[in-house]
């Protein structure tokens, strides 16, 4: 049998080498990207954790988004316990409302942050849990008040007034525009930035790894 390499053999080898090179270039590029790439300027929005922490997380989410619920229920608690509660990181939450029926919920989230910041996280979590997997039915305004009542420590009258007047509509609009500006064509929720860099939300481990890398870097 003729063992001389044919054109096809050489072509296959060349194609494989080019592909491997592209992967290697991508890996080197990813490894060389500076850990802190940009200032997001997300201040002034709801914050969970202490501002003195070294690492800043910015979480953009819509209260009616299923993937956001999944993140808040399955991934965020571990991050909160390991890094936020211990003062190693803080998280700025940027509510946006572009899904059907999310506006009253996003308004309520911002209102609770303003009037009872200590109840913010509990209320945020309760909103995601209560509305998860349910179609918008037009009763969100009333139901979100029930959620607030169950959380406790929230002035329901003020909250109702805020929801009815859509008092944070301008802020929500700004949040949405801001999200679109920083994410560009890749706009989506939930999105997490850690010290200005968009980060995988696949697992708590992946997020933890990024936080720890940044702590060492500082």
């Amino acid at each position, binding site marked *: 049998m003729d063992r001389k390499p*044919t054109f*096809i053999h050489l072509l296959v080898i060349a194609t494989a080498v080019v592909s491997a090179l592209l992967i290697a270039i*991508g890996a080197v590029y990813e490894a060389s990207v500076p850990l802190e790439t940009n200032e997001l300027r997300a201040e002034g929005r709801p914050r969970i954790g202490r501002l003195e922490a070294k690492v800043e997380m910015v979480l953009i989410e819509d209260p009616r*988004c299923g*993937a956001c619920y999944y993140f808040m229920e399955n991934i965020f608690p571990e991050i909160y316990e390991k890094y936020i509660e211990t003062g190693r990181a803080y998280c700025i939450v940027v509510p946006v409302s572009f899904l059907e029926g999310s506006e009253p919920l996003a308004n309520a989230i911002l209102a609770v942050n303003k009037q009872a910041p200590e109840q913010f996280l509990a209320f945020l979590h309760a909103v995601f849990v209560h509305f998860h997997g349910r179609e918008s039915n037009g009763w969100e305004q009333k139901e979100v008040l029930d959620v607030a009542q169950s959380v406790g420590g929230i002035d329901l009258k003020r909250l109702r007034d805020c929801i009815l007047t859509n008092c944070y509509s301008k802020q929500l609009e700004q949040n949405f525009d801001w999200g679109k500006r920083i994410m560009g*064509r*890749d706009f*989506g*929720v939930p999105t997490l930035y850690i010290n200005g860099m968009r980060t995988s939300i*696949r697992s708590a481990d992946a997020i933890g790894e990024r936080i720890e890398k940044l702590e060492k870097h500082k």
Partner: protein
Amino acid sequence: MKIPRLPAIYLAWVLCLAGSLMSLYFSELRHIEPCRFCWFQRIALFPLAIQLGIFTYRSDGSAAIYGIPLCFVGFSAAVLQSLDLVFDFHALCGPGISCREGMIYFFDFIPLCWVSGAGFVVIAALLWLGRRVQPT
């Protein structure tokens, strides 16, 4: 050295490589999380990107036997994702990353799942065309 016509299996392999590299680019460099259906499409695509290289090197037309079922899996996942996108069957997507929000569009109107589905059809067709090549 005589330069022969490029075999169909080689073209199928190049398509698989392009798809795999693009998928890795979106997930690893642009940090866009793959949804459940995207993962099924990747499960079908990534093995093809390796197998078809070996089949091409060996000029082995039996690639169709192994490759077409994988193309079918990938195509089915792309169809389900398209249904989710068009008819809002989000129950199909399950918990976790949404199959609709954050969808990548080519030229602002062609969703990635359509490109993927068409890609699997073309790969399967090329494998079918290349099935008569005898092993060296």
